[in-house]
């Protein structure tokens, strides 16, 4: 579905790369979690995958449509949830396109899928963080993508909403989509992702299956803080041991 080979990125007027040497691939129905400390280039990597930023070297090959869920959206204008969602139909039909009836139907379908249809006529800015995230996921679904890319979808959410977003990610994968998301929480990666990419500035990234990669040693090395992985709980957990 998506195959990334040895890509790097650096800004035009800068000599040092934001990241380099990333390799990974992802198949249909798989989830990839990207983990890395702040400033390791996770968001930049996502932007290059979306072709918002051009890669400096390497190749990105993907089959199918790619859709993006930003961490948050801040419009100064007060759109309704339905107006916000239908924007997912985007510029697919050109500069002069306006959403058609089928776009609105797909929009309502997507809202229903994430449980937000009853909010369709409400103001987007008056929703809670979790609800907004759900609407942004619905918006990404409107274009019926094959690959979904989410930038830290849980970072501003409470546990309940984190769980909701993670369950949605799982469902999307079950429906045959390839899902890529970045997170600061290794446990989320362990429980949701099939594949994991660990990125660290100026170091070779590590890619592999979640259970293999998310070891105490690699995570401790990644975050420069002791991260424990414990098998004794009813389910495996990964937690930082703060100094």
């Amino acid at each position, binding site marked *: 579905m998506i195959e990334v080979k040895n890509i790097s990125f650096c800004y*035009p*007027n800068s000599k040092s790369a934001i990241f380099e040497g990333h390799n990974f691939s992802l198949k249909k129905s798989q989830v990839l979690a990207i983990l890395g400390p702040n400033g390791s280039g996770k968001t930049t990597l996502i*932007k290059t995958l*979306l072709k*918002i930023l051009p890669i400096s070297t390497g190749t990105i090959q993907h089959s199918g449509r790619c*859709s*993006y869920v*930003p961490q948050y*959206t*801040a*419009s*100064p*204008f*007060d*759109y*309704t949830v*339905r*107006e916000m969602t239908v*924007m*997912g139909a*985007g*510029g*697919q039909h050109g*500069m*002069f*396109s*306006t*959403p058609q*009836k089928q776009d*609105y*139907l797909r929009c*309502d379908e997507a809202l229903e899928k994430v449980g937000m*249809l*009853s909010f*369709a*006529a*409400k*103001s987007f*800015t*008056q929703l809670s963080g979790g609800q907004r995230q759900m609407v942004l996921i619905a*918006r990404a679904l409107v*274009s019926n993508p094959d690959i979904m890319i989410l930038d830290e979808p849980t970072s501003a959410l409470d546990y309940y909403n984190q769980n909701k977003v993670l369950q949605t990610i799982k469902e999307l994968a079950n429906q045959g989509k390839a899902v890529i998301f970045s997170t600061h929480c290794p446990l989320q990666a362990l429980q949701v992702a099939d594949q994991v990419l660990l990125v660290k500035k100026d170091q070779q990234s590590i890619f592999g299956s979640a259970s293999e990669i998310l070891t105490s040693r690699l995570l401790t090395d990644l975050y420069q803080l002791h991260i424990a992985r414990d098998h004794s709980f009813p389910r495996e957990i990964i937690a930082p041991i703060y100094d």
Partner: protein
Amino acid sequence: MNLKNTVNNPTSKPKLSLLAFALNQQRYKINFTSFNALLALLLALLIMTITFALSTGRYDIEFIKVIKILGSHIVDLPNDWKIVEQRVVELVRLPRILVAALCGAALSLCGAALQGLFRNPLVGPQIIGVSSGAAFGGVMAILLMLTDYWISLFSFGFGSLALLLTLGISRSGGGSNILSLVLGGIVTSAFFASLIALVKYTADPDDTLPTIVYWLMGSFNESSYTDVLYVLIPLLTAGVLVIRMRFIINILSLGEEEAHSLGVNVDRSRWMILLSITLMIAATVSVSGIVGWVGLIVPHFARMITGANHARLLPVSMFIGSIYMVLVDTVARTASYGEIPIGVLTALLGAPIFAWLLYRTQLRGWSND
């Protein structure tokens, strides 16, 4: 439109007045029936305002006579008006009022589109420097004692040059983001403002200087049917283009990267909108001088009625802008013995209205972020 979950079923509140009904619908989905009703209401209001303006002035003409004079072109009516009344309505007031209405529509459309494009409700048509450039062009033509035709041409030429300068400055840093565009606009505006000051300084204080000063303050005085065409043609071409891009403006108002990720060709659509806006602003400046504040305030009022969606905001802004401009121009030509420059009046009215809008949005917030 068969959309589920309609919060406010229009059929459930049949007793509401049309405007209240439209207002009531504002937050919800596009309801085409109520939106068309709103547009019809605004069109009716505009026609009434224009007819009222035609009958008002130092030479008082009855309202009914104005309707008869205009109607006589469509149906055969008994001629019970004086020829001078017909002349005043058709040759003096009508072109002026039409120019005012069209300028109001064009400026408000530009303002609404720019506010969306720049993701900032405090932006007006002046922000990209085109107004200053066009004003300088007009001032130069006056200094060189050229005809009205040349004033229009110079306005448009220098307005376009100002846009190029703004784009050039914003791109010179390597970026093409909105902030660098705003900074480019500020630099360009300041540059042309100083050039205008220089022209004023060199102008003949007994002859061209008063003309320049008066022209800069804005006026629809001496508007002709040619001026109507000068604004109508850009409005029918560039204006229609901007309205057709209403959905893209919605998406652009989310920010560059998001718009890009939603499949919009950000650069191309943005420049297309900016060029269209330049054409319209330059056209309005060339016929009326600088009329500020309209493009800034009117979209706010329109937003109160329609909500943020540009599909409704743009046409409603145009209608409100037309009505507002015709009313203000009527005041400008009737309130005192001499004519009050319209730019002065729109600023006098605009500043307190804007302060009120600021106060109101401080209470409510443009968004809850």
